[in-house]
């Protein structure tokens, strides 16, 4: 149990690192963030495996309480979406029984060492998490449009979080549906646009920072990148006709660089609130079991 909390704590710490890296001097460090996403993935896999074991052990009469708690967790906050809007995590569905929190474990004594790890790590107690649920939960403007993300171990599901419209969308087999929106600024327009958008190549969301290369910059000779750049340009031009230009600039600035422009758009957000509600959102996402795709999109 301690290790499960450690996994949860690791996820929380990892998200915090990713969030703080966006304001670091010198830009986001690709290497470090890639490693952090690996920790995220590992912790999540461990958490999911433990959780599924616990679910199997849960007696039937407790299901209602569990469902109720899950329903509470579903109320995603906009702060979480903004925190992790450009990060996805590959969930390969591989689960391991040999997880431990960084200590070398012999297979003979997993529980004992898990306890040692628990003392080494700072842990959030479950009671704190419940407090956060009651205090920091936002009400969503359009709950009717929610769809409870189903536990889906299949690979064709992807969660996309849009900074501009604060819309969380899940793509299942090429189609998307809006999961949640919080304080929508342009909810309908954005959602509809994204309906059309999502049927197209999802690589739209990855804006190559090299898109910004001015014409006079020397292009490395051996690698002809004009074809790739043309494809990106074509996608972007056709999409810009459909999308609000503000959406594009926000999305590009977020995904392309993680720079100041996107930070300005949500700098009003109380960072304490963001950190405080991480746990809720984590639980939702973890319990939902929706597939996460690759965790770093901002490059």
């Amino acid at each position, binding site marked *: 149990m301690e290790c499960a909390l*450690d*996994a949860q704590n*690791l996820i929380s*710490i990892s998200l915090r*690192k990713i969030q703080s890296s966006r304001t670091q*001097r*010198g*830009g986001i*460090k*690709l*290497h*470090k963030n*890639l*490693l952090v996403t*690996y*920790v995220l993935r*590992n*912790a999540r896999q*461990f958490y999911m495996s433990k959780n599924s074991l616990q679910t199997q052990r849960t007696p039937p009469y407790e299901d209602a309480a569990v469902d109720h708690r899950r329903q509470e967790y579903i109320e995603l906050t906009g702060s979480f979406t903004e925190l992790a809007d450009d990060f*996805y995590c*590959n969930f390969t569905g591989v689960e*391991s029984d*040999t*997880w*431990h*929190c*960084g*200590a*070398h*474990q*012999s*297979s003979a004594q997993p529980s004992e060492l898990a306890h*040692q*790890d628990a003392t*080494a*790590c*700072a842990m959030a107690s479950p009671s704190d998490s419940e407090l956060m649920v009651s205090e920091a939960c936002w009400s969503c403007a359009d709950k009717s449009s929610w769809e409870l993300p189903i536990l889906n171990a299949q690979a064709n599901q992807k969660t996309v979080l849009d900074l501009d419209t604060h819309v969380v969308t899940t793509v299942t087999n090429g189609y998307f549906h809006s999961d949640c929106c919080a304080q929508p600024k342009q909810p309908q327009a954005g959602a509809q646009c994204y309906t059309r958008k999502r049927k197209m190549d*999802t*690589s739209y969301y*990855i804006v*190559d*920072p*090299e898109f*910004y290369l*001015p014409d006079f*910059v*020397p292009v*490395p*000779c*051996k*690698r002809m990148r004009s074809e790739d750049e043309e494809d990106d340009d074509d996608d972007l031009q056709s999409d810009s006709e459909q999308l609000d230009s503000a959406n594009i600039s926000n999305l590009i600035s977020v995904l*392309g*660089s993680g*720079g*100041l422009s996107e930070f300005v758009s949500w700098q009003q957000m109380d960072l304490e609130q963001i950190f405080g509600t991480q746990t809720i959102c984590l639980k939702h996402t973890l319990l939902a079991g929706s597939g996460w*795709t*690759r965790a*770093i*999109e901002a*490059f």
Partner: protein
Amino acid sequence: ADIISTVEFNHTGELLATGDKGGRVVIFQQEPESKNQPQCRGEYNVYSTFQSHEPEFDYLKSLEIEEKINKIRWLPQKNAAQFLLSTNDKTIKLWKISERDKRPEGYNLKEEDGRYRDPNSVTTLRVPVLRPMDLMVEASPRRVFANAHTYHINSISVNSDHETYLSADDLRINLWHLEITDRSFNIVDIKPANMEELTEVITAAEFHPDQCNTFVYSSSKGTIRLCDMRASALCDQHAKMFEEPEDPNNRSFFSEIISSISDVKFSHSGRYMMTRDYLSVKIWDLNMETRPVETYQVHEYLRSKLCSLYENDCIFDKFECCWNGNDSVVMTGSYNNFFRMFDRDYRQDVTFEASRENSKPRSVLKPRKISTGGKRKKDEISVDSLDFNKKILHTAWHPLDNIIAVATTNNLYIFQDKLN
């Protein structure tokens, strides 16, 4: 701003260059051996200081570009001047360091202070002569290699042909000619078509010391790829891949982090290469790809502390490693201002500490021991009392002599072995 970020001896060992987080380069020069004390090697004193890189701002991406010097590499000396390459995250610069110890005197049209004389007042002509002056060391930027890297540059390496060099960032490696700044060739590109599929990045790259066609690059997944530029223009297909299978018993949340290679260095002979990951140093024979021929544990006692080290970001520290002149000893840094040496021939290892208290001039460094078990012996240091803010990431070994340069956060220590 004076946090040392790189240390490098030149090819003769006479000069030692350091770069810091503030973009400055400080070069030390070894004093000639004293005739009074022929057994004592000369000390290193400051030779030149200059500002190599300044902070810049990318207005398009709204990103600040740090001025921190990531790497310095010396060029082989061809004439009286010295040349070095220094790089920050985005731009590489070629610097010329030259001495001036004479100045011309006796101009006809100029006064000694530089003011021009009235030509009408010139009645006689004289030939200017060179007179000695106080030594002045000038550093001037000769080339600027910019705008070729989208991601952060982590390595530069000069080719043995002395004409080209490579620069590597997280996803690409470019080949430059030292004389040409407006063009570079991309020789490795591991950027996936879809960034969602990104699984590894390039962490270090180096040219082979003798074979001008061969270079290696290491990855965050713990693999090293050796590439031959004769095989194809784009070296995405490696000629050899060096990888050791992971021990499943050591699997943890942080396996990927601790297997990421932070430095790769060829031996002087060119037969071996050394890699540094978070906990160990590995020596690879270029003829064997399946596993390293030697593995040295730097600080295995940290394996149980990975969670805490992840929390305080220490697990992301990138330690470098270096060979001694005849490839018999390797050295790398650790925490608490410890650095470790591994003697390959005698299979011995030793830990030293670089600190002001322990490093009085002419005093002998005392080996340190870390207590990993329950009982701590006298003079041993317990793992819990290690200071993780004091770390030695950068070390360098004189190419010919047993002189080492060890950089703590703010200080540079130069040690030499005791001569009898």
